[in-house]
């Protein structure tokens, strides 16, 4: 992977960024995302998967999320500071979700509604 760095008119040296991938890699990622989405929907309709529905769907959606962020949003190739900025917001968001669900016993009610899951 080649690297590209620009020079500013003020003589500052912007941080180096890796070159973005080409159309072929974007298409491969799209194919993977499509397959994962199809698997998610299939898992939802297969009664035998009911026990594993929640963990399976959470893992699959996390994989889709990471693929889009890393390859389509180019965090894999951009400066790590952008990743940190985004991860900070994402971590706080996850903390908000988990805290509120714990505060309101949402996990307990969810477990009672889906005893096998």
């Amino acid at each position, binding site marked *: 992977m080649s690297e*590209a760095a*620009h*020079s*500013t*008119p003020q003589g*500052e*040296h*912007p*941080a180096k960024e890796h070159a*973005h991938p*080409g*159309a072929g890699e*974007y*298409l491969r*990622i*799209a194919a993977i*995302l*499509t397959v994962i*989405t199809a698997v*998610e*929907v299939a898992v*939802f*309709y297969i009664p035998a998967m009911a026990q594993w*529905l*929640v963990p399976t*769907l*959470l893992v*699959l*959606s996390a994989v*889709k*999320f990471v693929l*889009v*962020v890393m390859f*389509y*949003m*180019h965090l894999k190739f*951009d*400066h790590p*500071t*952008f990743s940190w*900025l*985004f*991860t*900070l*917001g*994402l971590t*706080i*968001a*996850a903390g*908000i*979700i988990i*805290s*509120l*669900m714990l505060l*309101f016993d*949402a996990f307990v*009610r*969810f477990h009672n*509604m889906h005893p096998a899951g």
Partner: protein
Amino acid sequence: MATAAAAADHHYTTTGLNSRKMLFWTFLGSECMFFGSLISTYLVYKNHSTTGPYPHEVLNIPLTSISAFVLLMSSLTMVLALAGVQRDRIGQAKLWLAATAFLGMIFIGNQVYEFHHFVTSEGLTLQKNLFGASFFVLTGFHGAHVTVGVIWLLSLLIMAFSGKLSSKNSLDVEIAGLYWHFVDIVWIGIFTLIYLIQ
């Protein structure tokens, strides 16, 4: 020369990072918190409804699966548009920008149909129960973000047709792309947490 010209149009922070890009990633971080709050509100309230309709009675998985697929494909067309602009292939960029906006409009159309069906056929409104209130607020805000994205894409398309889009200002397309991919990843979360895990 081309990179030097491109750099002349961009502003860099003392860290060496582009200030617009840094600002936008900070904004996306704050958007994570915004949608995190809405998603947690939905998850907390959805099983507190004392009257129907309930999620499993109304949510249409085939329709939203198509919407999820459409939005994922729009992310592909968006990166292809960016790749076109960065390589100064403006004709290619126009095509992919138009495709992205079109797919975004299909998504919004599906959502309008879903909302209309819920209100007219299922009797689910914002005031009906806690599920309705939290569902419409969450998915409605996401739909509003998609609508803003479509308007943004159409404005870039107008720029492209008026000859104002080139590799020199590819950052404009890159930032619009970041926003577009963000609404896509929010839908990845909504599709799983709201629709598939009922």
